[in-house]
């Protein structure tokens, strides 16, 4: 049985459509990621999943239980971490944990083994009030609280936002650990690079799912060969690539509707481009040299999640 099944979920706030015909399935024991920017509809989708919102249309079940009709049974099965870490800032680490344990009808002792790998990292600070913890520690505490009743499914809304890189990596390692315990995990993040940590991902933008697959397959779905061009002055490189005779329509700061061939996009220390059919990479370097950018380099690269996202977004428009 699938852990989550969503059929044609639509949700509107007044005139704004937050979710537009979203369907997906999460398998039991899977680590499933929703990747998309702020405002894509991730939080609304998660709130529907945890029975907090009744969708305007469509239907969702968790372990066969409907999120609207069977919300009472479901609430016992879900471990939920909302976007804002839901901790009582004026209660200590221990008090927060005990409180949530009692509320969910269990005790810290009963499920200690489950949270141990996470909790033991913050246990030395158990007397400290939650408001005084660092972002990473808050995140760990919030996860411990969500886990305390041994849920069958963990639903984590942007658990890594605003947390430093070290804590984030640790966090994803913890999630892998929990997956081995057999807990299904649905997680959302605006950070494309975190997608690689998931079994499968859904790319979500403006309330629509652009694609669902394993991270590798998503990357493979990029339609063309992708190249990275490097040159010390990135701005000059970017503008030059746009105005090369090969590229009829530059991508200005505001989006442009006409098709263009090179699609130069700044990516970190390089600019990613795709080549029109029949154009060789060397021709680009030559053209750049003529344009006054000697010594640029070009290499073919494996597209990243963000490249695919960008392509899908453009297609969608």
């Amino acid at each position: 049985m699938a852990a989550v099944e969503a059929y044609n979920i639509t949700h509107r706030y007044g005139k704004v459509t937050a979710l537009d015909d979203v369907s997906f399935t999460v398998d039991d024991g899977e680590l499933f990621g929703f990747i998309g920017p702020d405002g894509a509809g991730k939080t609304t989708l998660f709130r529907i999943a945890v029975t907090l919102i009744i969708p305007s249309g469509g239907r969702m079940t968790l372990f066969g239980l409907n999120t609207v009709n069977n919300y009472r049974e479901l609430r016992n099965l879900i471990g939920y971490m909302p976007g804002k870490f839901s901790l009582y800032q004026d209660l200590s680490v221990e008090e927060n944990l005990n409180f949530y344990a009692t509320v969910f009808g269990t005790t810290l002792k009963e499920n200690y083994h489950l949270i141990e790998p996470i909790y033991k990292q913050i246990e030395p600070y158990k007397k400290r009030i939650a408001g005084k913890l660092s972002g990473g520690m808050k995140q760990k505490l919030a996860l411990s609280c969500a886990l305390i009743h041994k849920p069958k499914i963990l639903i984590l809304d942007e658990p890594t936002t605003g947390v430093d890189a070290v804590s984030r990596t640790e966090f994803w390692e913890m999630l892998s650990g929990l997956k081995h315990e057999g807990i299904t995990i649905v997680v959302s993040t605006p950070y494309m690079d975190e997608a690689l940590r998931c079994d499968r991902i859904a790319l979500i933008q403006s309330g629509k799912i652009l694609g669902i697959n394993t991270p590798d397959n998503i990357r493979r779905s990029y339609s063309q060969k992708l190249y990275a061009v490097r040159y010390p002055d990135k701005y000059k490189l970017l503008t030059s690539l746009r105005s090369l005779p090969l590229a009829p329509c530059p991508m200005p700061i505001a989006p442009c509707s006409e098709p263009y061939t090179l699609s130069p996009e700044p990516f970190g220390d390089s600019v990613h481009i795709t080549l029109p059919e029949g154009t060789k990479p060397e021709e680009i370097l030559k053209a750049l040299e003529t344009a006054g950018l000697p010594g640029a380099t070009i290499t073919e690269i494996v597209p990243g999640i963000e490249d695919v996202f960008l392509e899908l977004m453009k297609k969608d428009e």
Partner: protein
Amino acid sequence: MKKFMAFVKKEFQHIFRDYRTLIILFGLPAAQILIFGYAVRTDLTNAGIAVLDNAHDVVSAELITRINASEFFHIKYFLNTYDEIDPAFKKGKIKAVIIFPDDFAERLTREGNATVSIIADGSEGNNANLVTGYTTAILNDYSAGLTKQLTSAMPVIVPEVRMYFNPNLQSHFMFIPGIITLILILISALMTSVTIVREKEFGTMEVLLVSPLKPWQIILGKVAPYFFLSLVNVIVILLMAWFVFDLPVKGSISLLIAECMLYILLGLSIGILISASVEKIMNAIFISALGLMLPTLLLSGFIFPIENMPKIYDYVSLFLPPRWFVEIMRSIMIKGAGFMYVWKGTLILAAMTLFFMLLSARKFKVRLEEGGK
């Protein structure tokens, strides 16, 4: 039940960990009592008064000398006719006029009792009380002196007090029922709405809603501590009224507490209603403060007597719970009235409580109807 108790415990932890809440909870009532109490309780020294001596006999002369000699009064005007009383009040800064009837000494010696009229400036209710109090003391002192001289029964000088400007003198203790009303609405409505909205703002409400806790458990868990604390506060205020201002409750204490409980319930349901309607703590504070405290202060008769208001406000105040509660409190505390006298107000408050409870129960959801960042 265990879940529920854990909830209540957590709520107390919140309260006792935040010294600001504690100050509001316990400091504020005490401060208000003392401020209101002492602001109006200035000691009387050298208050200007006027005397209208129709008797012109030995006794009245003796009394006038005594009054003038006391540190409390000095006589600013000697009046000759009743017509001069009104101008005297209006132009001179006098607190009272003392009037001796024309056959004063004669009646005192012959009948053993005589009346002195005191007309006090009732616009400052407290002063009026003090003036009458001191005057009566001087008169009693004099009659006690007479008793020693005479062997017959003690002659009594009866002071007959009338109020100028404010004929049905509002007792200066009237503020105590008012303060109870204010504090109860403040703690029960404002504090509950803030504490619930805080859970929304910090995102903890989301997890609570998703938990197996039932909504009524969440709500009861949040309000139970405030119900308890409100009651503690009522008792603190009553004790202060008694020991600091010598104002014991005249009526039945249990009736008083029962009425307070009803009013607290009303406040709590309003608080829940507010919290169900807003998302931000600031909004909760604004609505509670402006929507509840101002009417309590201005339209309940707590500070401004309802009789003196334009009719329209009088009608508006009929719909405001504090008006009824202030009335009930005054009847019980000051007049010593029993349930027979306050049943109407109680019924109205009970109806209002029921109304707000149903409304807030409807508004409080098992889900977040709206969400989204």
